């Protein structure tokens, strides 16, 4: 092997990488927060909501879970303008991630809701709470606690999946790696650095979600 590794370009191109990291983080933060919120709303609708609403939510969930993320992204960015709905690449990327996580999150959170003992609903009702109040104050937090590891994994998957947004020229980390590679012809080094950064981001995100879980859910102490 006589390939000479050269990371000298880092000195020139690091601002591109930093910008890419910032955009990937922004997409993850917005996509994660709004996606989970959408997932909660859909999970409520599918598990406890009015009967007329359920088929619509089910259709949305199945549509998203059975089509590629890249196609969803292309549809929003390239397809919707035909209907007069135009948005920038970042808005399209954010929207696609929210819609995507909303569908997967819906199914994960729904599992948590459906594992709720019936006595919790009855206790809420017997105290005079409405069904929605019982869901919001009684059912939701323990339901999220049950599925938090699965939901955390899904959020990490969505963050890694955000690499696809480089295809609509949203300048995320993958876009940055492609850009640097095309300027320096240092393919190995460019993608190696991007790989490391994704790895660190994913581990950090997982830890952050774990920490969030600790603050959201009370500590269980063994009796």
């Amino acid at each position, binding site marked *: 092997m006589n390939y000479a590794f050269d990371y000298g370009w880092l000195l020139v191109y690091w601002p591109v990488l930093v910008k890419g990291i910032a955009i990937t983080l922004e997409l993850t933060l917005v996509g994660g927060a709004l996606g989970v919120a959408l997932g909660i709303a859909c999970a409520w609708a599918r598990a406890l909501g009015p009967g007329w609403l359920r088929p619509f939510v089910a259709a949305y969930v199945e549509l998203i879970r059975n089509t590629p993320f890249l196609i969803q992204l292309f549809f929003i960015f390239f397809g919707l303008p035909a209907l007069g709905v135009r948005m920038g690449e970042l808005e399209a990327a954010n929207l696609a991630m929210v819609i995507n996580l909303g569908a997967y999150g819906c199914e994960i959170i729904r599992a948590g809701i459906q594992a709720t*003992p019936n006595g919790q609903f009855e206790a809420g009702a017997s105290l005079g709470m409405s069904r929605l109040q019982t869901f919001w104050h009684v059912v939701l937090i323990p339901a999220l606690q049950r599925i938090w590891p699965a939901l955390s994994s899904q959020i990490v998957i969505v963050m890694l999946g955000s690499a696809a947004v480089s295809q609509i020229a949203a300048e995320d980390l993958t876009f940055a790696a492609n850009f640097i590679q095309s300027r320096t012809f240092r393919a190995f080094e460019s993608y190696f650095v991007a790989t490391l950064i994704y790895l660190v981001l994913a581990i950090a995100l997982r830890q952050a979600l774990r920490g969030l879980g600790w603050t959201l859910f009370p500590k269980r102490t063994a009796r």
Partner: protein
Amino acid sequence: MSLIEITEVKKRFGDNEVLKGINIDVAPGEVVAIIGRSGSGKSTLLRCINGLEAIDEGSISVAGAQLLPDELHLKALRLKVGMIFQQFNLFPHLTAGRNVMLSQMVVKKTPKAQAEAMAKTMLERVGLGHKFDAYPDQLSGGQQQRVAIARALAMQPIALLCDEITSALDPELVSEVLAVVKELAGEGMTLMMVTHEMRFARDVCSRVVFMHQGRVHEIGPPEEVFANPKTPELQQFLGVTH
């Protein structure tokens, strides 16, 4: 003037008629024990009174609040009658104090400070003032059930329904819960309780209802029902042979 009026109540699960026309009137301050075999309909009756089960025929009212199947009427009814469950059903993500505060704040829109003061008072009333910040899984079964009683009392109901509230407890924990109930009875709270604690029913209750196959089979003051069961079914249930 009755506080709880149960008139010709019928309830079916599919083809299975579990309540076949129940009539019971409960006066204010009365403590009514409902006894009977499992499957006799006693828990179902109790659950019908605050609308956890819908009734098919008849009517139920508590202090003028009619049992009607819409959320507004149900809420009005449930504000008058609290319920304690066999499995406690405390909210696991909230401390004991928060469990007692939640419905006051959500349903009655009580300000937080006031709800907290009420929660402290009620927890002290059941002997758990020092457990305000404990989570349910840090409490024994008996303590959890007493928190559940405090939680129901904090809504200031006129009557309490107790559905086998000591059946899930270890034997040594039963008495601490029953002591609380006895105290409530002494203070004039109207109680309807499904129970297997015959001695408690005899000592504390003003009336005993024996249910059998979906009907009120015998009803009367405990000394009469326990000492002098008239029907063979009750005699058999009590293990008395004449």
